[in-house]
């Protein structure tokens, strides 16, 4: 029951993140939205792990381990994006993705 609830929550988070990524022009906002979207995807992974609970385990360990790897990669991506953004802002005095 609560696995289904979090499944729906994950689906909604994916939608919210996707919307933010498309609509928000500021790069820092896009980075935030990417993390929301990532959170939704990870939550779905966690829900699938939970659904796979069997024997004495509270969840399937394989997707849980994939999640940990995914979280690490997503942090690394955020850090690289922030570094690029800060350097761009330092060079141009603006933080924009489009020219004008």
């Amino acid at each position: 029951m609560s696995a289904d609830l979090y499944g729906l929550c994950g689906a909604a988070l994916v939608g919210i993140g996707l919307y933010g990524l498309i609509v928000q022009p500021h790069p820092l906002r896009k980075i935030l939205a990417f993390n929301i979207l990532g959170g939704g995807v990870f939550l779905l992974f966690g829900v699938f792990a939970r659904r796979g609970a069997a024997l004495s385990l509270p969840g399937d360990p394989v997707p849980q381990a994939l999640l940990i790897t995914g979280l690490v990669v997503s942090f690394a991506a955020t850090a690289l994006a922030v570094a690029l953004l800060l350097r761009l802002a330092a060079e141009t005095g603006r933080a924009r993705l489009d020219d004008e």
Partner: protein
Amino acid sequence: MTELLSNTPGGTLLVFALVVPAAGLMLAFLAGGRAAMRVAFAVVAVQLGLSIAIARAVWDSGAALIYLAGGWRPPLGIALRADGISAAMMVMTAIVLAAVALYARTNFSAATERRADLTFWCLLIALSGAMNAVFLGNDLFNLYVALELLTFVAVPLVCLDGKPATLQAALRYLLFALIGSVLYLLGVALFYGAYAALDITLLRGRIHGEPAAYLAVALMTAGLLAKTALFPLHLWLPPAHADAPPAASAVLSALVVKAKFFLILRLWFALMPTLAEGPGADLLGALGAGAILFGSALALRQARLKLLIAYSTLAQLGYLFLMIPLATGPVNWLFWSAGAWTGGMFQAIAHGFAKAAMFLAAGLMAEVAGHDRIAGLAGIGRALPVATLGFALGGLSLLGVPPSGGFLAKWLLLTASIAEGQWWWAVVMLIGGAMAGGYIFRVLANTLADSPAPLPVAPRGRQYVVLALALCSLALGLLPAGPSALLQIGRVGP
């Protein structure tokens, strides 16, 4: 044909194709300075040998090579698998990387460690590993990690010179790549949720048209299209590829986008082989056709040489996607389906060689002329005769003039489209070829024109690298039937 997932003779080679660059990356990073460059040369050379050994092993055994990491059998463990197309792409990648390393020695070899030098050599080594990880992966999540490795290699390459315009291009590229990765990962999650397996071979046996599988493949394909820059998701590509240093542009355009296309092929032909018979394949074909027309039209209008080459990449990527609606049908049953498959892969390989040659040639031209405005390239043909010849040969392969590899690719795709009664793809290909002729001719006409003040004649060394790459693209069309049979090994069909 069902494959057993167990180690095959020669499978150990696959491990080394990943371990050598991994160790090389750490060593180069640790040693720094000029030693990083030496490590990169050693890695590139070993990888060339390894990829040829793998191709031979695939050819000799006539079946895919498989290695189970740690001896753990999927679904718990991860399998590496090399079939004919993996081997062919690995050889192409190794040759291009070797050429780019030779070319870049001049630009990135200061005596003391510099930012761009260390970054470039480390990334070149990492690229070799990341490409191989994509070609060898048989586990969807392992492929996700490989895709991310590629992202982290490609983004810093774009902004290697540190100019604001390239930083902006790199950031935009990173955001596109991240959306692509996260959509891909979402698809991976759905596959796990529905089948508790991630191995492509295992999944193929378990998928029976469930909605979860269709949604997963749709999301993953959309993500990969954004990463491949297929029209209309191409906006990030031209600035990212055109403003990077020439050695970086060459690997980005020749290799990195191909890896993502390769994954799309895996999804549509190895994972869910019935997909390519459905309407989705026609949609991808239509997007490819759009890319050919749109990319070529924009390439014709560019004033800068490197932008022209970048837009031509958009167009040439389009041809790759035409193979998806054409290479359908049971393997070995319809010979033109096999032809379309071979044609598509020839296109990927021939374009890899040709595009690397053209970007490197453009880099030399910009060094001599001090700019890359096409209208101001008069006299370049005299100053850089060998590189201009390389550019011309690469261009001929792009427009499909016999006997080049590009000709063979386009000829095979053309015959397949007519044989299968899908003549409209043939029309697009012919128009695209004519437009490519237009933009290549425009560049050549300018470079071969006499300049009022003769430019200094440049040293030949790096020009021969360009020529060698262009000749590889050309030679592909002259090879005996061997390679096309290699490309069919380990191919699966519905």
